[in-house]
């Protein structure tokens, strides 16, 4: 019973996307968007934002159950993961062997510069690593078996961000440790003890900016779009909804989290399309939208199948090389 507040702690934690302040801002943004850009009345906008067919769909109800179950898993899994400090320390040691830089080489730069550089680099590296892992989750069958859980959502609400298999949570935590640990070690090695983070309410100022500008609307039915030029730089909520679309031409597009530049650079960018009606989810033979037991267990069966197929292929290749 004492753990129950911990299950909902994310709603009061500004480091989390579902912090209630960000959610309120997302609602405000959605209303203003629908009224100003789409010409709805305030009343119609309100009804559309709080559409009960979305929030009480069977897919959304599964999201809520997964949210709670994953919180419980997190309590057990988090302590055993490799920390960014372990990675940072190992890399910090190793950097001493790089002949062309020395510790504290740029420590004479003004503190403001150092903090700005670290804050920006950390956000960029973190975002790039999210792009890469996300892309691999779609491209590699073994990882897609896990990531399908997220894409099986047929309606999207801000809670859908938690609709992931626990193994995906582990992979993302390791990615975070690697990205942050690497950035920390390199920046501290080069800039010394001036390294610090610009924060608002304890959050990286850039993450804060990402969240207050509607990150929660990425998983929603409110398709806020940006100008085309801006959608080359930043992923709009509508672009992320394209990523979830069942349309063939939308597959494997818009892997980016905050920045669209990675998609642009690696050829996976897809701009949003005005008034395009999107449907979300996966065919039933791929994943269930609503059966929680199936959602948690099927990835294991799918992964086993992928491994088995690979082994068979390897075995036949080996036999072929013997003859």
């Amino acid at each position, binding site marked *: 019973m004492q753990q129950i507040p911990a299950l909902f702690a994310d709603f009061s934690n500004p480091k989390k996307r579902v912090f209630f302040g960000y959610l309120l801002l997302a609602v405000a943004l959605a209303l203003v968007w629908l009224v100003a850009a789409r010409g709805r009345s305030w009343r119609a906008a309100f009804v559309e934002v709080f559409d009960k067919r979305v929030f009480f769909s069977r897919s959304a109800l599964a999201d809520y159950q997964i949210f709670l179950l994953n919180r419980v898993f997190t309590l057990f899994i988090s302590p055993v993961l490799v920390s960014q400090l372990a990675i940072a320390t190992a890399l910090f040691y190793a950097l001493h062997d790089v002949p062309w830089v020395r510790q504290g080489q740029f420590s004479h730069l003004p503190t403001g510069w150092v903090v700005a550089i670290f804050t920006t680099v950390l956000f960029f590296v973190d975002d790039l690593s999210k792009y890469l892992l996300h892309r691999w989750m779609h491209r590699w069958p073994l990882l897609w078996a896990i990531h399908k859980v997220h894409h099986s959502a047929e309606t999207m609400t801000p809670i859908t961000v938690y609709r992931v298999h626990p193994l995906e949570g582990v992979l993302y935590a390791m990615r975070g440790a690697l990205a942050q640990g690497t950035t920390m*070690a390199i920046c501290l090695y080069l800039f010394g003890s001036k390294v610090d983070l610009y924060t608002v309410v304890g959050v990286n100022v850039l993450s804060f900016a990402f969240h207050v500008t509607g990150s929660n609307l990425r998983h929603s039915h409110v398709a806020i779009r940006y100008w085309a030029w801006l959608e080359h730089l930043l992923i709009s909520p509508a672009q992320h909804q394209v990523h979830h679309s069942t349309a063939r031409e939308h597959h494997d597009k818009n892997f980016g989290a905050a920045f669209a530049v990675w998609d642009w650079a690696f050829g996976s960018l897809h701009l949003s399309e005005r008034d395009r009606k999107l449907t979300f989810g996966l065919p039933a033979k791929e994943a269930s939208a609503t059966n929680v037991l199936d959602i948690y267990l099927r990835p294991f069966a799918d992964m086993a199948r992928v491994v088995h197929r690979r082994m068979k292929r390897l075995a036949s290749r080996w036999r072929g090389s013997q003859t």
Partner: protein
Amino acid sequence: MLKSKLKFTTALAVLAVAGSAALAGEVYGPFPITEKSYSGDKTNSVSYSGQVARHVLHDSLKALAYKGDGGHNAAALEAQMLAYFNGSDEDLPIIAPTSKDGFPIKQTTVNEISKGKNISGKFYKGAMPAWPGNKSGLDVMLQMISMAAASEQGYDAVNGFDYGQLISKFTLGAMPYSQAVDNYLDEKLAADNKPNDKPYKDGAYYTGKEHVWDEAFGYFGAAAHSVNLDPNQNYGVAKRKDLAAADANGDGVVDLKTEYVFGPAYYAAGADKGGTKSTDYMGTIFGAFRDGRALIASADGAALTSEQRAQLVGYAATIESAWEQVLAEAAFKYAGSVYKDINTLKSGEDQDKALRAYVKHWGELKGFTMALQTGKSNLGATAFDLNWLVGFGPAMLDGKMVSDIDADGNVIRGREMSLEDYQVNMLKVQKLLKDTFGLKSLANDATADLAALADKLGATEAAETD
């Protein structure tokens, strides 16, 4: 009116007496005479002037280590250093600590403190593998004295030796620490060794156990009132900067016997003063000494019961472990200094000055890692690792370090070691010391920024997926 004034004055007087009684309870002594065979007029059984004399011999020896003129005065200087090390029939002048403006010191010669004392008789004679040549601790010190006497102002810029630092920091372990924890607080606490129902020696005004305990306290080197001073004040006394803090009896001069802070206590206060400021080594060690002494006094000249002795052994264990941590904290701090000095060296700014600071800090690091190996417990693999990581000399700019000193005293520089690799060694030294001795002050922690930043970032922000 008169009556109420009287009441007020009485209340003040009671408060003053109560207040001074509480303070008197905190300092080390005076403690009453409990030795039944003594009939003289002494009223205080505390005595540790011999240890104070040895601290003074050590401070003076360190000062002499910087008096070499490149070889011309080698023989005379070595003889002079040995007089302080081995003791002398003559009354030796105190070379350090001496009076300076605003800090007058009562004694000017060693005999004014105690006669017939030396360092060598109390010096660690076990094996010292931290120094080349498979020598005993005593032989290592004799070699260092000889090399210091032949040097130019105690500094060897080729091999990276600062003899004053090496001699001083090694001695801080090999004499006071080793004597206190491996002798006075060890076998001399046994029931049949210097028992409490007999005088320490015939005619003495203190019992066996009283004096054993006092001698150990004397080796710690705190002022009798150090416990009432904050770390900055104890530091200020040792640096001869804070007369007000030192002069407990208010006579305007500092009595080295009771009012000065010597090496081991200075480093305890130093660890409390720097780093995370979360430690109280001075309070821990001083408190255990004082409480142990009060326990012995409470036996009133009778043999200690096994319970009392067990309690005393408990105090001794507290002292030993905290004292060991103090030496390790100092080594940790100087490993951090050496790490930073290499950054300065590599930046190319004022190379001579940077090298001088590097060699000085290395001498302190090396000396303290040697000091750690003179205690009661065998450090085993920790000592081996420390000695390998720190080496027989610092890594120098040419990528080499000392590998041996031959029978003729020639230093051989045969080990390859880049400054970068040596920096990593310093990180490993800090980790090893921190993990082995449970250090908390952690001054000059070279990876503290990593831990602080990791703490600030936390893990929560990173785990979000899309």
